[in-house]
């Protein structure tokens, strides 16, 4: 990937990441995060991992961030009024994170052998066939367990976030008596 393109993407990623932690309104933080994730997806594509890059955009930017957005709206979170407070925490937190950044930066840059270029890889490196082949042969157990994990997550999320019919009646969102029969009749009319 050409250097100028990398510098541009890196700057966008860092600005987006700062945007996530600095901004006051949760929706703005979310948009900054979506931008950063999109940017990282493009970096994946530049590294030759096309399938994973597009999957990153589809899954993260297209689904997970929209989920976050819905939750922010559901909870009706406003822009945070008080930006002050916790100055000691912010100071020491920032310093510690900056130190971590510096150390990791030096450490990681040397980890891949500092001047290693992107070597030649197979022509279909990063293609969906190769990825699928590995998933269904070497990593098959992980693949199957992940599908069970997703099922567990779906059931768990619904169980956590739902309101039982009793709660709905109590909060006045549903009328209790006779609603079952009325619902069925209405459904029959709409489909009939």
């Amino acid at each position, binding site marked *: 990937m050409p250097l100028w393109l990398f510098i541009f993407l890196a700057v966008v990623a860092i600005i987006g990441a700062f945007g996530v932690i600095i901004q006051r309104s949760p929706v703005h933080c979310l*948009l900054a995060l*979506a931008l950063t994730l999109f940017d990282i997806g493009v970096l994946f594509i530049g590294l030759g991992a096309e399938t994973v890059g*597009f999957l990153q955009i*589809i899954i993260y930017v297209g689904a997970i961030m929209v989920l976050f957005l819905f939750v922010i*709206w559901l909870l009706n979170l406003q822009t945070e009024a008080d930006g002050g407070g916790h100055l000691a925490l912010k100071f020491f937190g920032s310093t510690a994170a900056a130190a971590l950044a510096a150390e990791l930066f030096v450490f990681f840059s040397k980890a891949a052998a500092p001047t290693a270029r992107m070597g030649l890889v197979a022509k279909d490196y990063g293609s969906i066939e190769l990825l699928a082949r590995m998933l269904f042969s070497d990593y098959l157990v992980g693949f199957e367990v992940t599908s069970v994990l997703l099922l567990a997550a779906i059931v768990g999320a619904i169980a956590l976030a739902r309101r039982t019919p009793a709660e709905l009646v109590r909060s006045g969102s549903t009328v209790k008596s006779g609603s079952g029969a009325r619902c069925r009749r209405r459904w029959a009319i709409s489909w009939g």
Partner: protein
Amino acid sequence: MGIELIIGAIKAVVIVVMVLNLAGLLLWFERKGSALIQDRVGANRAAVFGIGRRLGLPNLGLMNTLLADPIKLFTKEDFAPDGADRFLHGLAPFLALFPVLVAFAVVPIGDVLKIGSYSINLQAADLNVAALYILATLGVGVYGIALGGWASNNRWALLGGIRASAQMISYDLAMGLAIIAVVITYGTLDLQEICRIQGGVWFGWIPRWGILVQPVSFILLLTAGMAESKRVPFDLPEGESELVAGYFTEYSGGKQAVFMMTDFAEIVLVSVLITTFFFGGWQVPWLYRDGFHFPGGAYLALPNVVVAIAGVAAFFIKTLVFCWLQILVRWTLPRFRYDQLMRLGWKGLVPLGLANLLVTAFIVVAVEAKY
């Protein structure tokens, strides 16, 4: 390197200009077509300095939709509602338009065009994961709508925005399943390859178009595509009789023009996808790279330029047919209620898509196992 960059840039510009022009043309189709369907006249007044009035030209309504409306929309006052998030209010229309326009980068308009010694592949970006790219751009398209609704500081707009984004992500799933079934059938994600594979004939005369192999996917893609672009019968998010204008209530002038352009560009995108996956894209029946090979044995040799232009023309005709089909459906069917819409998406289309995927996979493996 230099000449390829120039060719690539020209292709990109041509495709974007083509899409925007098609969107404008569709606006005209919509106004006059809906007038035709509803037995009324439609736009028939505007003319430039009275030119052609004797010939009855204003009756076509072209000046109205293609000249008067855009000028009116773009010269209106541009404002953001009081208390709204100005930045997001201005950003949302463009955030909605951008993914739809870039999705056209992977659409193949024609086969290779040989100019001198250069073979130009008539596709702006030759990705070999093009189908994933289309799904990615459709996923990103949710943001503009959702933020447009939220940034308007208006509860009806917010409601419209939430409904629209929930609808879009639900039908994204159905579309993805339809596209995956097609990809399994053809064994490749590259759209130009899929168009090429649909050349050739079966039994000597039936063109190998995708609709004969994947009819269920066609229905799924058509339905899910219409739901994605929030056209009637799925247009509850902009329910005209219920939510004023849904998520773009507080938009006027240029921003509303951009939202409407998004609407029409998505119609074109869905038509283009259906054409590419199921109707052979730029393939003309019995036309190969060197000319026509008719089933009776007749052969007509044609130069490469004519073949390429015939392919492009075929592509446009097929796309316009499906755009017209969507317009027809819009002015025929009543609107779905929101729970009916969600029920259709999750309990109807997704199981159908999964069943289709299963059957397709079985058949593909069974056919290949014979060899």
